């Protein structure tokens, strides 16, 4: 026999030093903050406490985007569309929703970040990437 068991439990995850600064910059300045590694000079977004390339933890804060180009995208029937975008100034790609692109988009498409009107220091302060028409065919 089958018994259905359900739970409904709230969790709250500390964004930490780097995560908090990244989310506050979205909320207050509509800025996308990344870290530039003083050891290997690679720029990683979102802001980190360690460099994904060389593991160094001597990192400076830099701003990247809001424009960028699509390196991968996907579309689902129920959960919307997503894109991996190399933001201008960043060495790592950034994953977020793809908006205003009902037919999806193509690799290399130029996009820009669309911020939400009301923001509360969350990754959802960004609505998603929207295709930039007319810029860079």
């Amino acid at each position, binding site marked *: *026999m089958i018994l259905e*068991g359900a*739970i409904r439990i709230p*969790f709250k*995850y*500390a*964004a930490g030093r780097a995560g*908090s600064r990244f989310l*506050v910059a979205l909320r207050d300045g509509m800025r996308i903050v990344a870290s530039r590694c003083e050891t290997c000079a690679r720029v990683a977004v979102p802001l980190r406490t360690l460099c994904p390339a060389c593991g160094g933890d001597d990192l400076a804060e830099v701003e990247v985007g809001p424009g960028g180009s699509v390196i991968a995208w996907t579309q689902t029937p129920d959960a919307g569309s997503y894109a991996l975008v190399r933001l201008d100034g960043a060495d790592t790609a950034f994953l977020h929703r793809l908006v205003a692109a009902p037919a999806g988009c193509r690799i290399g498409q130029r996009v820009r970040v669309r911020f939400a009107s009301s923001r509360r220091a969350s*990754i959802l302060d960004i609505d998603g990437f929207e295709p930039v028409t007319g810029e860079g065919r």
Partner: protein
Amino acid sequence: MNEAILVPIEMAATWRYASGAAMERFCDGLRERRIEALRCGVCRRSYLPPRPICGNCHAPLSEWVSVADEGRLEAWTVLQVPMLDARTGSIREAPYGMGLIRLDGADTTINHYLAESDPARLAIGLRVRAVWRPEPRGAMDDIVHFEVLR
């Protein structure tokens, strides 16, 4: 300015648990206020809850044994703080009694609620009996709690 941001996410998840044959028969029994244990052919221990094999002997459990709905209180406590009742998702108010009960005919104990919640009136060795829900539905909470036989 170092604001510590917290990201709230609520988990709402459901699982469809399969009882397995032994637990299914046990739950069916509860519907008729019948408690059955499964006995190991090697060590002769009768287990509640029933299960596929005896962990000590690695032997299949296949001999059903009927067990009384009363027995001996082997351990007890009184919860003095409210606890989550995972079945209903609501909070069970304190105080409430709990015990490990060895039902006559079973070799393991079952953990269940006690009607009594005054520590001064609880002791190991007391005889207790199940108080059943008016319409049992085939689950462990068909037994509301165990009352102490004074």
